[in-house]
Every structure is written in C-alpha cells, then in structure tokens.
C-alpha cells in the first residue's frame, strides 16, 4: 500500500486530505469526528478578534446549482467567519490537538489590517499547540466590507505586509489563503512570498449569485426579499482553482512556493489532479458538506490504489509532475493533428454530436437515414466538441494522425516534428522577422 503520510511545509499529517476552514471545522465536535472519519488535518474555521463575535444572518445562507438528478455542482454561501467566542475556540483547539497530536491542526485567522491586532492574536492562538496559521485573505462577503478578507487579498501590498507581521509574531508556519476574485493570481502569490509566507492556499470562494427568485425579483439565497453576492465553491469551481494553482506553480518567481490546493475537490482523482499541478496537499469543504465526513474514505482508498498502480510510494513522488506540461498557447504543437472517431458499437444514436457539430462547429459529422453518425475527416478540425457532448464515455475518441499521413481537411500531409505558432508562417511577427 502506498504511503499517504504527508509533510506540507513541515506540518505532518496521516494523509494529504485536510478539511478547509469552513463549517465542517467550526467546532471540537466536528473536528474530532472528522479525524475519526479519516481526515488528515483541518484548518479551523476562521477566528476573529477577541470580543463580541460576528453575527450571521438568520435566514438561508446557502444557495446551490444542481446538475441532473439534483447533484450539487456549486454551492454559494454568505456565512462569515466563526460566530463563536475566541476563548471557546481556543480551548477546543487545545483539547483536540492534545488528543490528536499526529493530525494537522491549522488556525485560520482574520483580524483587521493592523500590526497590533495580528501580533496580539497569533501568539495567543499559538498556545493551543496548533501546527500553523492560515491567513484568510479570501472571504468575498461580509468581512471584505469591514476591510478584511478579500479586501486585503485584493491588494498585494497588504498581503505582503500582513504576511510579514504574521511571520514575525511566532515561529509557526504561515499559509496565505488567496482569493480568486482578482485578475491575476500571481500578484497576491508573489506578495505572500515576499512577505515571508511559507505557503499559499487557494482558492477561497468566488463572488456569485446562484439564482434569482422571479416572483419576488430577488437574488437567491433570499433574506426577507433581498439577497447579496455570496462565495461560490464546489465541483463547479475546480477548473478555475486548478488554473490558478498551475499558474503559481509554473511561474518562475513562485515555482518553489508550496501550495495547498482547494476548490471543488470531491474524489481522489480531483485531489491527484491538483497535486499533479503542484499542490503539496489539498483542502476540502463542499464535498464534506454535501456527503459527510465519510467521503474521505474514498479519497484515501482511491489515491492509494492509483499510487500503487503507478508505482508512486509517496505523494511527493507525483506532486508537480504535470506542471512542466502546462504551457502557453503559442508553444502547443500545431503539427499534432487528430480526427474524431465514432465507435459504432458504442454509439446509442442520440445525435447530440451531430447537432453540436452541424449547428455550432464545423459540419463534420454525417448522419445517414438510419441514424448512423460518421465523421467527415475532410471537415473535422478536431475541436473535441463531439467528444464532450457525447453521453457515452469513450464512444467518440480522437485519433492522432501519423507524420506523413494525409490530413484530408487541408490536403497536406502531416508534418513531422514539432512546430508551433511562434514559427508559423501566418504569424505576423514571424513575417516581420523575415
């Protein structure tokens, strides 16, 4: 069996699956049960300053997007940071850490952007025995309006400054949690690095409105006839999160900055994908909120089976293995030519590929009177749309043409070797150079 134990910036845990800072990690009762269920670590629900805690709305705080069969694809929330008193959280964290010394316990923190505030609270939290801090610069609602959360996370200078204060406050590792509500994720990541942060975690939730009540004419979730934008998470955000992880991992300045991957992770495969792109470990929130803590068992069994099959003995064997293959568009090989192929044995004759290609792509699928669908190689540009809309997995595949083989669409034989846009004759800058 593969060894799943994980060492993320010196923080050890029995596996790389942590629960992200959110309701699942809100209290001792949950966290103990999470550890018993198999989670390797938790980032405790974000702590705020001492004194009267924040208050949450008392109406619905979640909205959702469902797929077929009411599968929850995206969740949105307008919850704030912990609404329980600081002392209570600290007492509970101390007790939990004492009983689970081998599990990771990270304190998520959000206080106003003032040096005193950070330098006062972090040493106080460190007394719980927690393994490190996660600075919550991500929350897009409620806290931002108070100059915290994503209001800080959107200003790289602030990130750098607060990271530095946090590093100066205690000797514990500091993870900076990034908000995706920005145009370029590299600026906040570089700022965290400059401020001395040990790692970044991403993504926090994305500004969103999940629906509109057309009778009341209010966004959902609706509180007394009004709604507000909330933070979007769950399977729907995974592609956005993975791109941001990959951008940081392949950016020379941040290439060595450890990343804790977050966003829509639901299965072992999601976790492996984030890790292949450069995340040293992963955090999960919505999947646990949808299916319960037990879901981690599938992540554990799946990841270890896959690692065994691939011969990886430790998670560090494959972390970042896909990063070098994330490139810019202009470096993709234009001599790599493929054609869609429909397996007639698997085809159930629904015609979705035909509608997609005929109406919106390249009119490259032929439909016979008796509903046989075939690809016209002389029209197919290999866009992959038919593959994506086909309901039968593996029914339509892409065949790679060999070098020298005729591409019937262009009437040209496939060129041997690699050739990208930077050297393509149609590229104006190539012509300019000639």
């Amino acid at each position, binding site marked *: 069996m593969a060894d799943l134990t994980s060492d993320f910036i010196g923080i050890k845990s029995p596996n790389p699956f942590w629960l992200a800072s959110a309701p699942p990690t809100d209290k001792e009762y949950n966290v103990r049960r999470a550890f018993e269920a198999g989670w390797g670590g938790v980032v405790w629900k974000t702590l705020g300053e001492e004194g009267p805690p924040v208050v949450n709305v008392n109406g619905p705080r979640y909205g959702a997007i469902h797929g077929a*069969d009411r599968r929850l694809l995206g969740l949105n929330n307008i919850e704030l940071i912990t609404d329980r008193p600081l002392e209570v959280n600290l007492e509970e964290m101390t007790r939990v850490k004492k009983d689970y010394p081998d599990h990771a316990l990270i304190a998520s923190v959000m206080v106003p952007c003032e040096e005193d505030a950070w330098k006062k609270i972090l040493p106080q939290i460190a007394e719980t025995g927690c393994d490190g801090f996660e600075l919550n610069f991500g929350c897009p609602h409620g806290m931002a309006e108070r100059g915290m959360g994503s209001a800080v996370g959107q200003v790289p200078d602030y990130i750098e400054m607060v990271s530095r204060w946090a590093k100066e406050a205690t000797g514990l590792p500091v993870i900076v949690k990034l908000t995706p509500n920005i145009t370029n994720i590299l600026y906040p990541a570089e700022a965290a690095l400059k401020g001395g942060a040990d790692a970044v975690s991403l993504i926090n939730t994305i500004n969103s409105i999940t629906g509109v009540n057309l009778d009341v004419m209010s966004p959902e979730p609706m509180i007394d006839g009004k709604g507000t934008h909330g933070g979007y998470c769950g399977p729907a955000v995974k592609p956005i999160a993975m791109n941001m992880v990959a951008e940081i991992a392949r950016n020379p300045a941040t290439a060595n900055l450890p990343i804790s991957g977050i966003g829509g992770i639901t299965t072992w495969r999601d976790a492996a994908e984030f890790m292949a792109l450069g995340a040293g470990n992963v955090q999960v929130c919505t999947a646990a909120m949808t299916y*319960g803590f037990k*879901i981690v068992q*599938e992540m554990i069994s*799946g990841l270890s089976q896959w690692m065994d099959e691939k011969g990886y003995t430790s998670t560090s064997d494959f972390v970042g293995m896909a990063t070098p293959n994330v490139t810019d568009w202009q470096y993709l090989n234009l001599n790599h030519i493929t054609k869609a192929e429909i397996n007639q044995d698997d085809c159930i004759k629904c015609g979705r590929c035909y509608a997609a290609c005929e109406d919106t792509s390249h009119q490259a699928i032929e439909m016979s009177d008796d509903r046989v669908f075939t690809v016209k190689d002389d029209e197919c540009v290999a866009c992959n749309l038919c593959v994506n809309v086909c309901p039968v997995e*593996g029914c339509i595949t892409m065949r790679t043409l060999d070098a020298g083989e005729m591409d019937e669409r262009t009437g040209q034989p496939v060129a041997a070797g690699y050739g990208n846009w930077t050297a393509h004759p149609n590229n104006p800058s190539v012509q300019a150079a000639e």
Partner: protein
Amino acid sequence: MTNSPLSQGVVSGRLSSAELAENFADLHAPLDDHEALVAADRCYFCHDAPCMEACPTDIDIPLFIRQISTGTPEAAARTILSQNILGGMCARVCPTETLCEEVCVREVAEGKPVKIGELQRYATDTLMAEDTHPFERDASTGKKIAVVGAGPAGLSAAHRLAMYGHDVTVFDGRAKPGGLNEFGIASYKSVDNFAAREVEWLLQIGGITVETGKRLGERLSLETLKADYDAVFLGIGLGGVNALGLEGEDKGGVLDAVDFISNLRQASDLTNVAIGRDVVVIGGGMTAVDAAVQAKLLGALNVSLVYRRGRDRMAASVFEQDLAASKGVHIISNASPKAVIGNGAVREIEFEYTDNDLKATGQTVRLPADQVFKAIGQTLSGDGLPDLDGSKIAVDGTGRTSVDWIWAGGDCASGGDDLTVTAVAEGRDAAEDIHASLS
C-alpha cells in the same frame, strides 16, 4: 436432435445444446463499464444507509458504489470483500429485492433501486479477473482450527481464521467444496463454474487445507476434532430433506428437488440431463422456484409449481415468482398433495385445494406428472451435535454452541434466514469470536 419438449416420458435432449446454452446463460448479463458508471451515479451516498443495514454482512454499500464511480472498482471490491469474502457469489444469488435494494431510498422514492447487486458483481468480477488476492495472512499463530462443511458459512469462517494466522482444516463430506454454491444455487445465477473459481480464489489467502470426502459421523467424530484442534466450527448446512408423507411417494420419478438441482449443476453436458414432459414441483421457496425454472429451461413442456398456501405466503420473493412465471412455470397456490398415482413410476399427482389456514375444501385436482420434485424444506441431519434449538443447532449471537470450543453458523445453526449471505455473515462472526477467544 431426436427429442423435443413434446416427447413423452423422462428424456434428455429436449432442446439443442445452443438452446440450452442460451437458457442457462447469466440471469443478468454483467454490467459493462459504462452501465456500471451510470448505475453507480444513481447512488446518493446516504448517511447511515438503509441498504447497509439491510445487508446481513453490513457491506459499506455507499462507499463501494462511490469507489466504482471514481474509477476504482478494485478498491470497491476490497470494501465488499473485507465484510463478505463471498461477495462475488452473493452479488449473484442474494435476493436483493428483499435485502439491500428493497430499502434503497430510490426504491422507496421512485420504485427503482440502485442496482446494488449488479454493481457488487461488477466490482468483485473486476478484482477477481486480476487474479490477485486482496488480503494477507498474518504470521502463523500455531493454533489449529477445524471447520466442518465447505459451504458459504464454513468457507467464510475459514478465510477469516486463516487471515488471522490460524491453521485451518476444512472437512466436507462431498467430493467438491462450495456447499450449495456448488450444488444448489440455480445454474443461471452462477455460470462459468463461478462457485469453484471463487473457492480457489478464496483459498489463495493460504493456511487452509481442504479435505473433501470426509463426513462428520462417518470418518470423523466431533470428539476427535475437539481433541485434535483448538476450536471447531460447524457449517454443515441442512443435509436432510423433508418428506411429503404421502402414499406412493416412493414411486419412480418422485425426487428431492435438491438432488435434481445438484445433478443438473454437476452435469458436464446439459443435453444429457433427462427431464419429464410434465413436471410438478411441490413447495413455495427458492428451491422450488429454482427446480421449476430449471426444469422448464431444460425443455419440459409443462411445469407446475404447487404451493399449499396463498401466493403471498410463498417464501420465494415476488421477483423469483415473476421469474418463474416469465419462464412459463405455472404457479398453483392453495393446493396440498394428496396422492401419487402411477404404476411403478409416477403418472399423476392429486392435490386438494385448501384455504389459507390449510383447511381442506374437498375439491381435488390431478396433474399429469412424469416427475415430481419435492421442495418442502431441508432439515439438519447428524448425531451427537451440540444442543438444538428447535430443529437447528442452538447458537448465541457469535455462533457459540452448548459445547465449549465448538461454534456453528449458516443453515445448520439457529437464527437468521437460510441464505448464502447470512451463512457468510455467521461464519465470519464466529471466526471473529474464535479468534478473540484464542488470543
């Protein structure tokens, strides 16, 4: 082909080998990858799932289905097999319609349960096709344990004990291990010699010696076993068959359904298995249905299944009754056998109609019959066994009998339904208790 369904008497070759092959093919064709994903997708991953509760072996069904969804059927198989080492056979033979699938929340909500049994088969077949054994045997403890009976109960106990490092010897009176998996289960539920393949695969754990042809009471005694072994597990099933107690019961052509089935299961060529033109099966359980359906599949022209009470009282599930009806078996209820008529061999059998309380009505009916299969229940056989509770060996929740260091489970023991999966659960639980007692 010289014979047909219309041929008179008890003859073989009523159908061609091609027809027989088709008739005796898998009841449910195995799911392919796509079908499995679609079926798995329907599982809601319920909390504290009702299906899990309903499974006598407590398989973590939501977890294994999720593991199938995420492309790791091997991990799914491990989840299944860690609770139920005969998960492959159970996937084929469990009456899921009265177990896990009956309580599936989607059955309750939509009348269409998640196909738990077929998904279980998909997972276990995938793992077994790799011909690896997913469990490792602990270091030898030096303890010796005798298991009597190589049916589901005995095999399950033996595997769990061997896994814990004990040295297990399994004795069985028959020439082959497997119990009713090998000799009883309907052919179309266990095709391609699955029962034997599964036993072979199970034995890969190591530490288990199987001694066939050794019957307790003949060449073996419980006293010697007790003296020679640290513990004994009895999984001897039900060796006896209930008689009708009718005049003429000894006439030719009147057979025990289990014998007919076991001959059929062991036949190397189904075209050689003789079957009557008119077959009457007496009973209302799974054995009766299996005998009737298989008689029909062999090419009998008329097969009647006659049960003495109302259809709702039949032990066979509605699914099984429908299966029988769909194969052309005529189900007659509220009729008790009265007399076997014939000169040497059975020719007709007379029934009297009875009400649901078995009160005779005086109305009778005669059915033509070249063969009559009795399927009115099996009984425990054997002397010198531990104390009985009714007609079965009395056991507590972990299979302990009245005699120290002797455990029992499966059909021969009190409690639980007479099902493969129950036998597996009881064998496993007894093994856990034996292991705990020896440690």
